């Protein structure tokens, strides 16, 4: 069991101060966990270390929380937003609390957010029940996790790639680990869950599967016409696409922007779920 900030509020204050100082100096990058040459991700700057173990030894916090903070922060629309998100989460961790339960609580919070088809609903209920067992103090054997993951992946594999359902399926299959022993599980759940916001944002905007197929076909056409027999060319398929089909290319750029905004919205929603859990 880890005790947040080893019960010492000075440690929390130091982490926040270091983060703020690096933010003021322009050293914070929107990145997965990183600390190099005096610059780094939100967590890297908060602990000034490239060793994730320091997060636990110095601050008494579980590794998955560090990875989660950086995932949320790095998907904010600007560095300022990233620092703000990281700062708010670190500040929200109650000093002296046992935050080991937060991983399972957060996974349950994500999986129970929104609707799902009956097939996926069964999958996520299974995942939620195993995480709930951990919260209740009942051990889940590795073989149980493994079997549940195999079942979940088989279900996900039957879903259309990049569809909303597939994103939910990926989130459910990624959740079938104990976050304490498998620090990347929480972010693995969050990634497709947030991507779901991007997928829905595209659907709302009117981007269809046919549009997606058309773009792939056009890019292949650009490659075949201009680049396949011209290996010395420094130009990209996108540059040729912009010249040959300017309206389509402009719409593709808008599509990318819409998706990015949707995904960022997903990460912000996740930040709010996490802050709510930490406040309980």
């Amino acid at each position, binding site marked *: 069991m880890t005790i947040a900030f080893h019960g010492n509020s000075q440690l929390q204050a130091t982490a926040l101060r270091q983060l703020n100082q690096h933010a003021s100096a322009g050293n914070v990058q929107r990145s*997965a966990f990183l600390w190099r040459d005096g610059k780094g991700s939100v967590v890297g700057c908060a602990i000034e270390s490239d060793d994730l173990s320091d997060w636990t030894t110095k601050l008494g916090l579980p590794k998955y929380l560090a*990875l989660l903070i950086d995932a949320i922060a790095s998907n904010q629309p600007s560095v300022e937003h990233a620092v703000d998100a990281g700062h708010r989460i670190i500040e929200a961790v109650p000093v002296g609390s046992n935050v080991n339960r937060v991983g399972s609580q957060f996974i349950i919070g994500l999986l129970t957010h929104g609707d799902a088809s009956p097939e996926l609903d069964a999958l996520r209920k299974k995942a939620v029940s195993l995480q709930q067992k951990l919260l209740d103090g009942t051990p889940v054997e590795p073989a149980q996790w493994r079997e549940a993951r195999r079942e979940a992946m088989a279900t996900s594999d039957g879903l259309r790639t990049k569809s909303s359902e597939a994103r939910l399926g990926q989130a459910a299959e990624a959740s079938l680990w104990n976050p304490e022993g498998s620090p990347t599980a929480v972010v693995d759940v969050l990634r497709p869950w947030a991507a779901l916001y991007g997928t829905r944002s595209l659907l709302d905007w009117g981007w269809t599967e046919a549009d997606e197929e058309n773009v792939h076909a056009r890019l292949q056409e650009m490659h075949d016409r201009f680049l396949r027999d011209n290996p010395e060319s420094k130009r990209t398929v996108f540059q040729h696409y912009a010249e040959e089909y300017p309206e389509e290319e402009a719409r593709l750029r808008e599509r990318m922007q819409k998706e990015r905004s949707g995904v960022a919205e997903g990460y912000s929603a996740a930040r709010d779920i996490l802050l709510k859990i930490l406040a309980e």
Partner: protein
Amino acid sequence: MSASIVNSTEASFEADVLRSSIPVLVDFWADWCGPCKALAPVLSDIADELKDEVLVVKVNGDENKSLLEHYNVRGLPSMLLFVSGEEKSRLVGLQSKPRLMAFLEDHVEGL
């Protein structure tokens, strides 16, 4: 980075990977590659969990271009699985831990 992960280069690749007594998962990455950074914790997690069964090796593609060419690596991150010095299979792009574990379980006996 996990202490179980080995950083390899063109000079040490043969000893680190091709002559390894256990299967080796080689991650080709680059500094500028966002998905490579996102994958790093997953690889650390796996390296720690499977440290007696699978060796995880990282190769910086920018600094070891001849390895990229030799193994026809076209996208980053790329993970090549070597068993007894020969490439068995590969995965390209950011992977979740369950997918990467399933990939290893499919190709490494006894996992």
